[in-house]
């Protein structure tokens, strides 16, 4: 364990440098690069707001902010996992020539997506100002759901990166999976729809309750938009999901990492 921490501290400079490199590439394109990354989600949210709250008549107060808060958390997870998926294979040239802790690659992609999420947080605040959402002090608790979802995503990223080394078609399946996952998370439709929609004797909620992203997304909305602190039960569910996936991911990655070099 101590040895692991030592290697990690030794290679954290590399991790930070790789993330910085990714950020440079993303925001270099134009001087407006950073501004765009804030403007883009706001415009996107406005379009979706027009379509769904006007045309489909979703009864959701502050719809654009509602959408954007959910999308922020979900898109972080989706971006991080999709990029991590291929990260080990993209790092093949390094893996084959020097010794490196291989978790550096999925971790790089996850941290990069996390930094992007922090940038986009500005967009959320702007959108809330435009919508006139009342501000609550509980907003300051926003790091809690972000940490939950970060830990969850690290675990899932490690798992997917491992799978993809051995089965190259995991990526195709995953892109379909993530679309379904998005619709099973209340992002564009109001949370009330989950209990109002009946499928026979079930509600949509009976499926969605097994979706970890549902808890992270609603946690974030509670503290940022509603001024409510989720109770102990929700916190336990979030922590348990995050830790479970982290342990699963680390276990799978550790078990298989020595074989990576033979398959990349």
């Amino acid at each position: 364990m101590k040895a692991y921490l030592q290697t990690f501290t030794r290679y954290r400079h590399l991790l930070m440098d790789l993330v910085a490199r990714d950020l440079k590439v993303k925001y270099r394109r134009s001087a407006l690069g950073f501004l765009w990354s804030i403007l883009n989600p706001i415009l996107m949210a406005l379009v979706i707001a027009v379509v769904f709250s006007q045309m489909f008549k979703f009864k959701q107060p502050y719809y654009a902010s509602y959408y954007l808060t959910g999308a922020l958390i979900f898109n972080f997870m989706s971006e991080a996992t999709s990029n991590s998926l291929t990260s080990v294979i993209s790092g093949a040239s390094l893996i084959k020539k020097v010794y490196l802790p291989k978790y550096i690659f999925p971790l790089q992609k996850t941290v990069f997506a996390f930094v992007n999420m922090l940038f986009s947080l500005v967009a959320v605040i702007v959108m809330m100002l435009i919508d006139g959402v009342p501000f609550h002090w509980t907003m300051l608790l926003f790091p809690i759901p972000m940490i939950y979802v970060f830990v969850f995503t690290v675990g899932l990223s490690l798992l997917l990166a491992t799978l993809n080394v051995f089965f190259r078609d995991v990526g195709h399946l995953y892109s379909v999976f993530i679309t379904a996952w998005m619709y099973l998370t209340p992002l564009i439709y109001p949370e009330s729809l989950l209990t109002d929609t009946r499928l026979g004797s079930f509600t949509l909620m009976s499926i969605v309750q097994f979706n970890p992203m549902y808890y992270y997304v609603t946690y974030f909305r509670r503290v940022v938009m509603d001024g409510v602190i989720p109770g102990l039960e929700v916190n336990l569910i979030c922590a348990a999901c995050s830790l479970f996936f982290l342990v699963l991911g680390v276990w799978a990655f550790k078990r298989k990492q020595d074989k990576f070099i033979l398959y990349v």
Partner: protein
Amino acid sequence: MPNAIEVNNVTMKFNMSKDKVDSIKEYFIKMCKRQLRFEEFTALQNVSVNIEKGDVFGIVGLNGSGKSTFLKVVSGILKPTEGWAKTYGTISPLIELGAGFDMDLTARENVLLNGLVLGYTKKHMKEKFDEIIEFAELQDFVDVALKNFSSGMVARLGFAVATITKPDILIVDEILSVGDFLFQQKCEERIKELMANDTTVLIVSHSIEQIERLCKHVMWLDHGNVKMLGDMKTVCDAYKSM
């Protein structure tokens, strides 16, 4: 002298089946047809050797005899199928030309990246930067992308980065042969300097003269087996009269 490198009964097998299964779809098809075959190829067979601290250890053998595989096992890049390899201290591996270099980046950026990959800090690399460029004699190419370098120039840069901070173990795989004779001399001098500083050096070279000039002990690999292991003169003489 204590050991710097201990290699115990290492066997390295590769999967050489022509049609590698690398998708879920194929996996299930093959599994149903019971065609999941593994053709193994043994690149190293029960190799054991202890290398003392401060030794300069050469490895000779024909193409495909497992020399590079051995170096990769020692540097931790490959995990052996059986047995184990242990090293004591920091390692600088120069396994291949431009290991850890990104050809699209400039020499300056690559020095930094390569240092980080080797586990050094950014600050340390910035301090050493001028010294590295000076040793590699690439002052005029600092901001040129590496893809526009000749292979000898890439080798110079790689060698300069790997040896600028005295590693406890230096691993060199043939890359010296790409440099011109002046640079080769310079590299040999640097290696001798390192030797004086107790760095353990592991060299693979097809130039038997180079091995004779630098090494104290030599291992001869033949089809993954240790054919001979001992002091330089005995092994080199046997290898030459093969």
